[in-house]
């Protein structure tokens, strides 16, 4: 475990090199929330409630989603990992006593930890700007549950991104797969629209998949909504993490045989 904590520490340190990148990234929550503000302000012109939310709740929903989304930092790692496979630099994982999956997970978490500070500051500024509209957490209990589920969601996303990166062993160019992963997760996680706007039967199906719990449920819990779904959500997420972890290990052991070490 200690070696993986070292990997995480190195990841935090390497982030300090890219200050410009981190600084620009701080604007992300602003953009998503501002654009959502203008869209929903228009849609709420002659309505007081949509999908069980008022306009301030909707705005808060997007602020929470923007916060969670910004903490997910494994997205950029996919390109790096796939590049290493493609260009023969993956060999370093084969000669080191570390699991590529462990390396990937802890590098992602290290980046998340570093970005957490800046994201909290950026989202704090967004909350200050919309302080008249921002709805605070419904209760400490629902906030803790939301944070816990969001963390599990983060792990699921890291695993999905790792699986995408592994495809580089088979397909070499994974641009399409990675974009597809991003597009689908964006919609199914509720980052684009609250899932409560979808028909009930669709929400019912989505409860058995991890996407529902990545952003939609944590944001809803913060608003004091759907609290009865929290424990089921925890269970679903734990099951999915085990399944995805197993799948990742299985695929790695199958795909690494295809590694040609080109260019190494």
């Amino acid at each position, binding site marked *: 475990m200690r070696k993986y904590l070292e990997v995480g520490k190195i990841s935090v340190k390497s982030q300090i090199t890219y200050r410009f*990148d981190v600084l*620009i990234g701080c*604007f992300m929550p602003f953009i998503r929330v501002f654009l959502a503000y*203008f869209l929903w302000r228009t*849609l709420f012109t002659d309505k007081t409630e949509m*999908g069980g939310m008022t306009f301030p709740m909707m705005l808060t929903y997007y602020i929470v989603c923007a916060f969670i989304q910004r903490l997910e930092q494994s997205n950029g790692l996919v390109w790096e990992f796939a590049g290493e496979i493609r260009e023969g630099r993956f060999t370093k994982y084969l000669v080191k006593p570390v699991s590529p999956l462990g390396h990937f997970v802890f590098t992602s978490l290290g980046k998340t930890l570093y970005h957490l500070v800046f994201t909290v500051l950026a989202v704090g500024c967004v909350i200050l700007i919309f302080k008249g509209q921002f709805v605070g957490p419904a209760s400490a209990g629902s906030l803790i549950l939301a944070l816990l589920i969001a963390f599990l969601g983060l792990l699921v996303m890291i695993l999905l991104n790792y699986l995408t990166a592994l495809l580089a062993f088979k397909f070499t160019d994974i641009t*399409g797969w990675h974009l597809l992963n991003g*597009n689908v997760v964006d919609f199914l996680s509720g980052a684009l629209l609250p899932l409560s706007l979808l028909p009930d039967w669709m929400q019912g199906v989505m409860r058995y998949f991890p996407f529902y719990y990545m952003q939609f449920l944590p944001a809803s819990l913060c608003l004091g909504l759907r609290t009865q779904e929290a424990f089921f959500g925890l269970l679903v997420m734990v099951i999915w993490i085990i399944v995805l972890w197993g799948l990742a290990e299985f695929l790695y052991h199958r795909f690494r045989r295809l590694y040609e070490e080109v260019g190494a």
Partner: protein
Amino acid sequence: MKGISILRRYLGIFIRLFKFRLSNQMIYRASFWTVFIVDVSMFLIQLAVFSTLFLNVDTINGWNKYQMIFFVGTFNIIDSINMSLFFFGITSIPYKIREGKLDIYLTRPVNTLFWLSLENIDVSSTIVIIPGVIMVSYATAKLGITLTFGKVAGYLLLLILMLLLFYSLMLIIRTLSFWFIKTDALNDLEGEMIGFSFRVPGIVFTGVSKLVLYVLLPYALLATLPTQYFTTSFSLGHWALALGVTSAFVLISQWLWRLGLKNYTSASS
């Protein structure tokens, strides 16, 4: 006369690049189909977002369902042309700058930017233009719009202008790689702006936000202006906005590119 011969030469290069990429993509068929699937998924998600919204509202700031279908169709046409022609070329520029791989392009007797932009043409993305055209045609019929030569020509002209604007916006972000090693966040920021501007029509913005998203970061213009032209009223002011903003961003992107090249130090060679 000289201008025509240059044009013919570059057209010839474009055709060769296209043929080369087509044969290349046929070798890597999996890649060909994944890009196609990505484009279709984008299109379906776009449709799902608006269908969900229209389950809950009747209009978006005065635009009805069919105007929104037209908007989504226009988005798909612009996006598929962007993905087919220059998306993969432009997005590879930071990598080439960072790794010092730009050297080989600079030594070729062809405009570097032309080559870089068009060397990764993606044939599979062109297919998504079909549902875009179908949606635009369907919405036109439902809105009862009479087609005239002027109407179609104006729409096509606006599409070309918006594509030029899109290209320039993408290029500006990539030129920053000449000065900053890592620009991942900028790419994410751009993705965010494009994603939302294609999902949120520009008509919802007012005041300062309109100024920002129409002039300073004009992503909101891309699919909104052609839709506004075709489905509602379009004044001379709108034309001035489209021409003015596009010209300004084309000039800025070219200036930044030239400035960046002067700063290029060829990292690894």
